[in-house]
């Protein structure tokens, strides 16, 4: 557990060097119930005797040369989340413990990791010293439960607690070390229960009645009687390869070269286990505690190192100017997820190469350069409403698409569909005759032939969204439909016509609303025939 008591001021100082160099005490304030109150202090400010929760005007009166800023809670929390991701170069499971404050407490699961840093004590010292070198105030402790580690990091930092020692080590710490909320602490102190050790012998049922179940849970979690799980910020990866650099690297080409080496290592490991992966993630750990993540997906499970590194090369090309190595990258990790069995297959003498594998590779490359949503396939949907009868599914996700039985369409359908039906002005001989001419995009078309109508009724179950086509129709649905967009038979039905103009161009038009039922039927242009 790492505790950064002055994270809010430290991260601001790192972002703004002028602030770091000034010798004025820094105070961050926020508005609480209409008053400006101190939310965070730096070392100097607390040495002056200021405290969190004080009103800002009091603080200014006490320390005249105070530097004050408004705190941006969302930004501070976000920067802390990125900062915690960076710690995944020390341990795979990292999480932010946000019980007490949204930022400031970082928990690393170092089970099976500490030997890489030659012991728990040495690892703690190493993690703390590298953060202190960056200018952060940091405390830390190692314990076998999250609650105990939290308590030690806050109230008795620097300790490494062996398993089973929690009861003894915590007994002298104040009750506020149990991650309780304010009223619970106040209640305990009122009863004279100031140290955790005093709680061990108490009657549990009466304590639960007085302080609630959460109190007992916190106590049990700290002592290791109840289990508490970490929620890792990054998904766990079982298969990865990583490389640490003695000197940080910066160029994208170097990164890609290293990626290729890692891909070869990873593919050997995957091959030994007979599995392939569909998703690959590249984590670039920058020296200034930021992590960049690049992900690529494959349409079918693969472990082809050349293919993987090519996908990352295309992905990096799309990155363009967003790539920023900062002061350099000192570690790269390539992880694989979405695993599935992939046995080595021999190319058969009589097998027919249907090209499916090469096509999948092509789609992978395109999706990595253009984005997964740019390579799509159209899939049928079980509905009659034309613009919803087809959906575009990324090719990479197409395998997961369930089989749908779409309604059989006998009537002709256009080759191109406009993204949105466009309102047009139509002249017909009599109101319910096929259209005789239309004005679309300020050009008049005279029709010589037309067939129809094909009537497509709205789906009553989607009546409220059926007409979110254009601003006018939304307005029309509001006024013509029943209260709250209830379905009203006929107002949302469409009559489709195929109309051919004197130049032989064929359009797909529809009239929204049945004559005699809808108050004001309107015409729309919806597509082109070949």
């Amino acid at each position: 557990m790492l505790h950064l008591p002055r994270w809010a001021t430290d991260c601001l100082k790192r972002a703004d060097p002028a602030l770091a160099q000034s010798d004025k005490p820094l105070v961050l304030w926020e508005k609480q119930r209409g008053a400006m109150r101190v939310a965070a202090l730096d070392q100097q400010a607390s040495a002056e005797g200021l405290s969190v929760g004080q009103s800002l005007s009091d603080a200014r009166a006490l320390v005249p040369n105070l530097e004050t800023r408004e705190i941006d809670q969302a930004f501070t929390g976000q920067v802390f989340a990125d900062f915690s991701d960076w710690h995944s170069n020390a341990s795979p499971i990292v999480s932010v413990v946000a019980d007490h404050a949204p930022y400031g407490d970082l928990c690393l699961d170092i089970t099976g990791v500490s030997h890489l840093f030659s012991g728990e004590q040495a690892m703690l010292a190493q993690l703390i010293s590298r953060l202190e070198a960056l200018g952060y105030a940091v405390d830390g402790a190692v314990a076998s439960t999250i609650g105990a580690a939290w308590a030690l990091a806050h109230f008795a930092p620097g300790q490494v607690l062996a398993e089973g020692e929690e009861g003894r080590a915590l007994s002298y710490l104040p009750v506020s070390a149990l991650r309780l909320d304010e009223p619970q602490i106040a209640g305990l102190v009122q009863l004279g229960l100031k140290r955790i050790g005093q709680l061990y012998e108490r009657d549990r049922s009466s304590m639960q009645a007085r302080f609630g179940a959460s109190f007992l849970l916190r106590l049990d979690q700290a002592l290791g009687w109840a289990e508490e799980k970490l929620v890792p910020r990054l998904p766990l990866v079982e298969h990865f390869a990583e490389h640490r650099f003695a000197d940080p690297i910066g160029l994208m080409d170097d990164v890609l070269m290293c990626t290729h080496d890692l891909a070869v290592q990873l593919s050997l490991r995957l091959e030994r286990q007979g599995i392939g992966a569909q998703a690959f993630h590249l984590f670039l750990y920058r020296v200034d505690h930021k992590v960049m993540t690049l992900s690529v997906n494959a349409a079918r499970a693969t472990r082809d190192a050349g293919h993987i590194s090519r996908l990352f090369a295309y992905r990096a090309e799309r990155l363009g100017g967003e790539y920023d190595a900062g002061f350099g990258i000192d570690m790269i990790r390539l992880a694989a997820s979405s695993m599935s069995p992939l046995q080595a297959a021999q190319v058969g003498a009589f097998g027919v190469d249907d090209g499916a594998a090469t096509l999948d590779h092509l789609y992978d490359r395109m999706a990595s350069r253009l984005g997964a949503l740019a390579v799509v396939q159209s899939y049928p949907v079980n509905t009659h409403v034309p613009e919803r009868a087809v959906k575009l599914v990324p090719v990479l996700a197409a395998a997961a698409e369930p089989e749908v039985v779409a309604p059989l369409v006998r009537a002709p359908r256009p080759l191109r569909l406009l993204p949105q039906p466009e309102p047009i002005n139509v002249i017909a001989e009599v109101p319910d005759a096929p259209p005789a001419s239309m004005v679309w995009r300020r050009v008049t078309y005279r029709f010589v032939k037309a067939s129809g109508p094909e009537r497509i009724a709205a789906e009553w179950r989607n009546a409220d969204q059926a007409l979110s086509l254009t601003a006018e129709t939304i307005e029309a649905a509001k006024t013509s439909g029943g209260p709250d967009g209830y379905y009203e038979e006929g107002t949302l039905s469409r009559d489709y016509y195929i109309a051919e103009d004197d130049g032989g161009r064929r359009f797909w038009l529809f009239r929204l609303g049945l004559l005699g039922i809808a108050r004001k039927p309107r015409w729309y242009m919806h597509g082109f025939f070949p």
Partner: protein
Amino acid sequence: MLGDKSAALETLRQQITAIETNPALKDSGDVAIPDGFLATPRGSLHEVFADSLIGAGPALGFAFAQAKSLVDPVRPAILYLQLQSDALETGLPYGLGLKKFGLPAEQVVFVRPQTIIELLWAVEEAIACKAVAAVVADIGHAHKALDFTASRRMSLRTAASGASVFLVRYARDREASAAKFRWKVVPELSRSPAFDERAPGPPRWRVVLEKGSLGKRRRVAPDGEEYLVDWSENGFVLADIESRHGVAAVPRRPALPYAASAALGDRLSEAG
């Protein structure tokens, strides 16, 4: 001095022979034209022109029709490329419409790049794939990046790989390009289905082959070979050029003497 000149001439001659013997650079006249009406050889770059964006349907239809004829079990895929910004103007190909057109929707993959550079990259990447039969690139507007050099590059790549590329363009003026075939597709009044003179029939296009040749010289128009074709699910059908005005004439007598009411029911053509 003289020796230098003759040496230079010799190297030039060698270069010319090298170019001439390169199969990718052969004149279109030397390429074997496959059998079948309007069939084109594999691995060629086509330009399909429509006069304006309003003609988007027929030009795309013709390109898809040609692409369909190139599909076989070894090369099953057709790629359709369109800039995302163009789709807002002219719409995307519609899955059900493709099916009605005779092209199963699962055979076509839509690629939607954001810039023309990405689009050209995607075309090249697709050509290189052994399983792609044809690439249909729908280019709504003129772009600087799509110049003669780009088309030359594409033309060489297509010849080397065997996948065809169809650039669907919308303009009246023609830029210099290295395309082997240039088509112009103009919609024509369709032949009405039997028993319903007022309904549109199957698509009918006037296809002008402005550049390149299919070998059988049918010089009807002064600017190239010209065909009047109907499209059916099974392929092109040559419509009789001479009678095209006769068929398209206004029907002598409407099917009903008065405007038909919608209450008469479904008047969609029964004959398809």
